[in-house]
């Protein structure tokens, strides 16, 4: 599951990096998780998300079709992080994180994603990678 999510994130990196090293990036990420303990896994994810936010945006500007899902994704990550922090501080049930994610992010994420889907029918981040080949 972790590797699948990371593989999906790799789809947002620049095309040449995905094409030449995408598979190896996922492989290395999986190996890092395999060798890490619970705290280490959290660190691996934090670093991966930090890199994603630092390196992937250069690709979003180059591909207009990726801008809207990228903004949606950023809102989703922000919501998750906020709710995760609230969960950590208040000690609420874990399901609170996911339950409250919907009302906080849905008004932004759903319209933007629908708009994007209408404008770019059938084109997703991952098949865009294939298109670039």
């Amino acid at each position, binding site marked *: 599951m972790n590797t699948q999510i990371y593989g999906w994130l790799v789809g947002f*990196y620049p095309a*040449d*990096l995905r094409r*030449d*090293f995408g*598979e*190896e*990036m*996922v*492989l*290395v*990420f999986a*190996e*890092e998780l395999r060798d890490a303990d619970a705290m280490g896994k959290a660190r*691996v994810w934090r*670093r*991966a998300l*930090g*890199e*994603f936010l630092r*390196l*992937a945006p250069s690709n979003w500007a180059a591909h207009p079709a990726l801008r809207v899902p990228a903004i949606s994704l950023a809102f989703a990550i922000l919501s998750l992080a906020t709710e995760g922090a609230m969960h950590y501080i208040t000690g609420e049930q874990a399901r609170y994180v996911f339950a409250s994610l919907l009302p906080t992010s849905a008004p932004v994420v759903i319209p933007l994603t629908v708009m994007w889907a209408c404008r770019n029918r059938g084109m997703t981040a991952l098949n865009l990678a294939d298109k670039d080949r």
Partner: protein
Amino acid sequence: MPQSDQPLQPATFWILFALATGDKHGYAIMRETRKLSDGEFEMGPATLYTSIQRLLDSAWIEEVSGPDEGDRRRRYYHLAKTGKEALQSEMKRMEALVRKSKALRLWPMESKS
């Protein structure tokens, strides 16, 4: 890619340093950099492969064949002559810096209490 008289980016330096100890695949480079830096420097897959991509383009490192029994998805990298020169140049720069700071009695730093 930085000029030879400019300091190397941390990821570039540590990748070259890791490969100076022998040919390695991506994950082995990550582990070696962590070991060589005593855990002070860590990078994720995106930083690693963005740097490897630049180093390959500049011919500072090159792809070599790995062991036959290894995972076929893995690629192995070797420190090329130009990369070795860049690494040596960076180490000379660091050595000169330490020498100069010692001459100015700035090193070792005295802790203020």
